[in-house]
């Protein structure tokens, strides 16, 4: 049964219907213990149906494509118990133009991916021969189609290419974890940025520094900042959290809430980024949406149903996975930078930390804005210089408090995980706890 036939069948028995189809083809090349270990091929096809029947939402999905007809019965089974629909299916209103598909990614031979991964591992081990490396080079093509009973029928394809390296150095009972990753819709042919970052980490972590405790200055690298602040911010700016009254900034719309130098946007239109999309998972065209402008809370993210509940408009933020109905999700989160270089920031700190990665920062009261994590990779700063690696140390704070007054935003912004564009951030005081 084709998606059109399923939609037609559903339309005849329901007030409204929407069919979502996703197809993907992924080829991961995996390295373990410093050498090529496995080649994988993953083909996935799935179809989901959302219906509105007697004013209520029913949802079902399947990966058994030859039994797609059964989907309508499954969705109708649950619809009598479903949520009241507060939206109408969007009509045909086009796609925002975004560069996401590069045939060069699809065409890249496996042999080239193997060579890229092996050369990356060899280069890092040239610096530290006893480093044990795992790595991956992946390419994928995904095609998404959303069609509904209001006549909207939109689809797009995205290629992705990603490269990652994780090095482990075990000395006695001490373990050091280094590495980096990079991702784009276009092929990455040069692993030198990952190699350079990893080598720099190995250099900075060569010596141990004395642990330190107290309310101290903490500088986060872009990767460190992404791990600590993005989770709590995403929840706080979700229209669903706001509508429930659970967002710490839900009543701050239009008010100055953060440091005036702080701005961030949800931008699905950045070319060649993994979070970008021409439409969201409900077929609503994408647009760039400021969430915080110069410290002022500007907007929250909405999907169709939440917008209906909250008397707001969809911001095109209906994120989608096959097995669940649309939920609010960000696309690319783009943060404003500042004018300080990382070296300038470090030079200013008498006693503090430079954090590249917090482990477990997403546990605890994320909804309230809290983050607390063990410094997986971070260094002590003493008198303006990095003096070595710290361990057994926790950094804790509250995102909404900490962003009220920021010592400096850095000018070396980086893409983290393919969909977050983040500067280094320097907080004047965060709680640092350690033994000793």
């Amino acid at each position, binding site marked *: 049964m084709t998606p059109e036939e399923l939609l037609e069948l559903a339309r005849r028995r329901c007030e409204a219907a929407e069919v979502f189809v996703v197809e993907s083809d992924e080829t991961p090349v995996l390295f373990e213990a410093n050498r090529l*270990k496995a080649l*994988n091929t993953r083909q996935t096809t799935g179809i989901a149906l959302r219906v509105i029947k007697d004013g209520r939402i029913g949802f079902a999905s399947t990966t058994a494509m030859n039994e797609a007809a059964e989907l309508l019965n499954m969705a109708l089974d649950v619809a009598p118990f479903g949520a009241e629909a507060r939206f109408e299916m969007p009509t045909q209103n086009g796609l925002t133009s975004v560069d996401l598909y590069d045939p060069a990614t699809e065409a890249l031979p496996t042999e080239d991916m193997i060579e890229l991964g092996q050369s990356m591992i060899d280069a890092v081990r040239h610096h530290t021969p006893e480093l044990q490396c795992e790595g991956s080079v992946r390419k994928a093509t995904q095609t998404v189609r959303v069609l509904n009973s209001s006549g909207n029928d939109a689809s797009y394809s995205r290629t992705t290419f990603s490269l990652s390296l994780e090095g482990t150095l075990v000395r006695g009972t001490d373990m050091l974890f280094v590495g980096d990753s990079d991702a784009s819709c276009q092929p990455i042919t040069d692993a030198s940025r990952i190699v350079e970052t990893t080598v720099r980490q190995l250099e900075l972590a060569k010596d141990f520094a004395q642990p330190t405790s107290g309310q101290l200055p903490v500088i986060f690298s872009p990767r460190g900042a992404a791990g600590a602040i993005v989770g709590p911010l995403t929840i706080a700016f979700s229209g669903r959290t706001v509508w429930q009254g659970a967002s710490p900034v839900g009543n701050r719309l239009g008010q100055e809430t953060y440091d005036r130098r702080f701005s961030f946007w949800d931008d699905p239109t950045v070319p060649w980024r993994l979070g970008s999309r021409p439409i969201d998972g409900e077929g609503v065209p994408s647009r760039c949406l400021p969430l915080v402008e110069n410290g002022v809370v500007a907007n929250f993210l909405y999907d169709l149903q939440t917008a209906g*509940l909250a008397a707001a408009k969809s911001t095109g933020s209906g994120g989608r996975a096959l097995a669940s109905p649309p939920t609010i999700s960000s696309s690319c989160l783009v943060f404003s930078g500042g004018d300080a270089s990382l070296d300038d920031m470090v030079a200013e700190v008498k006693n503090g930390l430079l954090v590249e990665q917090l482990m477990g920062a997403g*546990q605890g009261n994320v909804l309230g804005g809290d983050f*607390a994590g063990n410094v997986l990779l971070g260094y002590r700063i003493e008198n303006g210089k990095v003096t070595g690696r710290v361990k057994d140390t*926790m950094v804790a704070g509250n995102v909404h408090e900490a962003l009220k007054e920021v010592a400096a935003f850095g000018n070396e912004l980086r893409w983290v995980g393919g969909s977050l564009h983040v500067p280094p951030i320097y907080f004047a005081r965060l709680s640092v706890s350690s033994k000793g």
Partner: protein
Amino acid sequence: MRDIMEAALRGHNADYIEIRVDDTDATRIIYRGRELEDIGRNRSFGGCVRALVSGGWGFVSFNDLDGLRDKVTLAVSQARLVGHEKSQLAEVPPVVDIVAPGIVNDPRNVPLAAKKRLMDEYNDIICSTPKIQTSNVVYGESDKRVIFANSRGSYIKQERIDVICRLSATARVDGDVQQASFSLGALNDFSFVESLHDQAREAAEKAVAMVSAPTAKGGAYTVILDPILAGVFTHEAFGHLSESDFVYENPQMQELMVLGKQFGGSHLNIVDGASVPGLRGSYRYDDEGTPAQKTYLIQEGVLVGRLHSQETAGKMGERPTGNARAIDYRFPPIVRMTNTYIEPGEATLEDLLEGVDEGIYVKNWYGGTTSMEMFTFSAGEAYMIRNGRVEGLLRPVVLTGNLFTTLANLDAIGNDIEFNQGGGCGKAGQMPLPVSNGSPHIRIRECVVGGR
């Protein structure tokens, strides 16, 4: 199906090949606040082929079983491109078996209306508590049928029904938001879902109480963990390090994790085993067809075992332990935990508290993660201990530590045991895998608690 799978496996030039096909029916009900957020059904059907040639692996996954033999050929050719050494796979005798799920109380026989009514009741208890801002009530069930065949002649059919329920309450006073929750689960048994009214009430009351509770001052404390959180500790702090895929090709790790090494006091015994019946991590055969076992990891404080797949066991010259698991057909099996627990000791809770002048009693879990050496996990509830007595409620805390010093600092083990069945484990993108973990109350000296 057996004929198709066996025909597809025949006549390839590979050291080992397996095919796995799984078919899952899932139902879920999700409330956020007063609003039902999602009620839906999913069917997930797909298969995969994994092949080993000269130490290299090829893996192909798909939703469409047509042309299965071609998919085997593709996996074999991928493996051949990778492999440049000798394949070392532990020998496991072929098994032909059909395993019935051993159902206690079948959730498939409970009408959707009845399930929704229960969730309505729990959500209503939470939402009608004063000062509660919102809730998150989740019910999920999945009925998974897996067929496995390999080139050694194994053919195994297994079925399991996982049931989970999560009750979470969020309180808000002014800008201050606090959350309390319970995560529960069971294998092949709906019964626990029917009587969670008290837990719903407790979650709501805890969340409200936390808003006015003080925050712990960060630093190193003597901490006492309740059985649920101690189970999470066992899983995060030690369990992951016993997974031998982190060890088998790393000479430095092999030195660190050498069998016979002292890790803790003679009172410490840690076990993992899928053959321990009736728990979320229980099964008869793992996803390589190896029979489930019960493995002592630490006995009387000494490292005596580790968790294996056929490859890690083969390379290390140890016995496979039946711990190779895949979350579904999209992934190859990797070394995972099953039911991981500390065996009970002698002490009562009063014994543990005795002599603790200033400490923290932590209960229930929120999450946890590990880097092998370092672990962090967060407690759902925390209380100050002063002069051997449990005193006022604190805001939830995050605990962190170094595995090697922390196991040595685990100085007392209680005489009770409980299992945490509400969690799912994540590793290498495969999440949430059903596992359980358990422990008696335990006491750890000098544990770092994050605070402000």
